[in-house]
């Protein structure tokens, strides 16, 4: 048995991407092209939800919503634009449902540029830019926890602190990190 789903505090209705129908370029290669584009969508989504299960669910939702609208004959750029518009909509609905985040709050994050190449290390580079703006302790706790995979106990030992204190520091560091604009 599972818990009753939480009622979102801000049940914003997710907006659909524009109802444009674009065409896939070549029937024989349609699946491969769509999969290559969905690979970018997957990386885009994964970088925002941080786990495979949710990233797969959301990518599948993008495919379900977008693929039926794609027929033969359009450039990959049009396909990509449509898929990412759908990905933003799906991600917006995900966070809106899970956290009650409004579409307006998500707008800036989801308006990021569409990736132009294969999955890159951009998320890690972005994380480094954020870490660089934090105080030493905050940077250290996030580096050890997320980039080196330390347990709380190991972080506490490394930082000569207690597990309780590290837990509080982790929360404060994440709050501080959320306020940093890595693109400024």
């Amino acid at each position, binding site marked *: *048995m*599972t*818990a*009753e789903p*939480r*009622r979102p*505090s801000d*049940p914003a*209705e997710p907006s*659909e991407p524009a109802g444009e129908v674009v065409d896939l370029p070549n029937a024989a290669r349609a*699946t491969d092209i*769509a999969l290559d584009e*969905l*690979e970018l969508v*997957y*990386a885009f989504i*994964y*970088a*925002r939800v*941080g*786990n495979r*299960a*949710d*990233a*797969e*669910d959301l*990518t*599948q*939702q993008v*495919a*379900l*919503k977008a*693929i*039926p609208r794609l027929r033969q004959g359009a450039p990959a750029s049009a396909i990509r634009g449509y898929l990412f518009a759908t990905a933003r909509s*799906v991600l917006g609905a995900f*966070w809106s*449902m*899970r*956290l009650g*985040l409004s579409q307006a709050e998500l707008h800036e994050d989801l308006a990021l540029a569409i990736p132009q190449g294969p999955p*890159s*290390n951009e*998320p*890690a580079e*972005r*994380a480094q830019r954020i870490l660089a703006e934090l105080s030493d302790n905050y940077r250290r706790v*996030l580096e050890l*926890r*997320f*980039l080196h*995979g330390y347990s*709380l106990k190991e972080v506490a030992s490394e930082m000569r602190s207690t597990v309780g204190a590290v*837990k*509080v520091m*982790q*929360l404060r560091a*994440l*709050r501080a*990190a*959320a306020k940093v604009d890595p693109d400024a």
Partner: protein
Amino acid sequence: MPEQPENRIDRIVNDLLHGRRLRLRAGDADEKEAITAAARFAAAGQGPQRMSPAFRRRLAELIESTPNEAWLTRRAALVAGFGVAAGAVAGGLLGKQLGSLGGASMLSASSPVVPVNGQWTDVGALADFADGQATHVTAGAVGAFVYRRGDSVSAVSSICSHLPCELWWEKGSGLLECPCHPVSFTPDGKPSSPSYTLSALNEVKTRITSAGRVEVLGT
């Protein structure tokens, strides 16, 4: 006693660091900025991500099956485990296209969810279900609300028949409410709101074993 924010965030961080999905609870929204930051750091710590071969194959099958079907029916999607997306297809996209497609292949929205190779999933003892109340359960990819009436139970899909939103049980009114728009359903899935004309919720099959366990037909 409410969970301290640092414990709440550490639970989420731990899940992320162990590759588990985001499991959020009431109150977690207070730390939404910290949670989204944690998700991004977790992703950053794992390097560039590519789809697994198994997931890529699943998507390929999904894409290749699409041209022949034109649109995925809501029921088919529910059975395939795409509950939320299915609602989007049925409620958002399909609804716009029914005129041109004629809706001939669309199954009744209130037809039962019968997964291909479905299996009965134990969701608890009958005694665990409060009489006259609906309880949210999952049976593999099928989400449902099980409603107990005395010694019998029934279940309906937990996804709204219009918008792709997960319903919640309002004890006070005894109705399943949609968080995305002002509609509600009775425990047997019939729409109760006069403001919208809606399809009923899909029935989900249930049974009670001789040992008094409730089982739901899922995936």
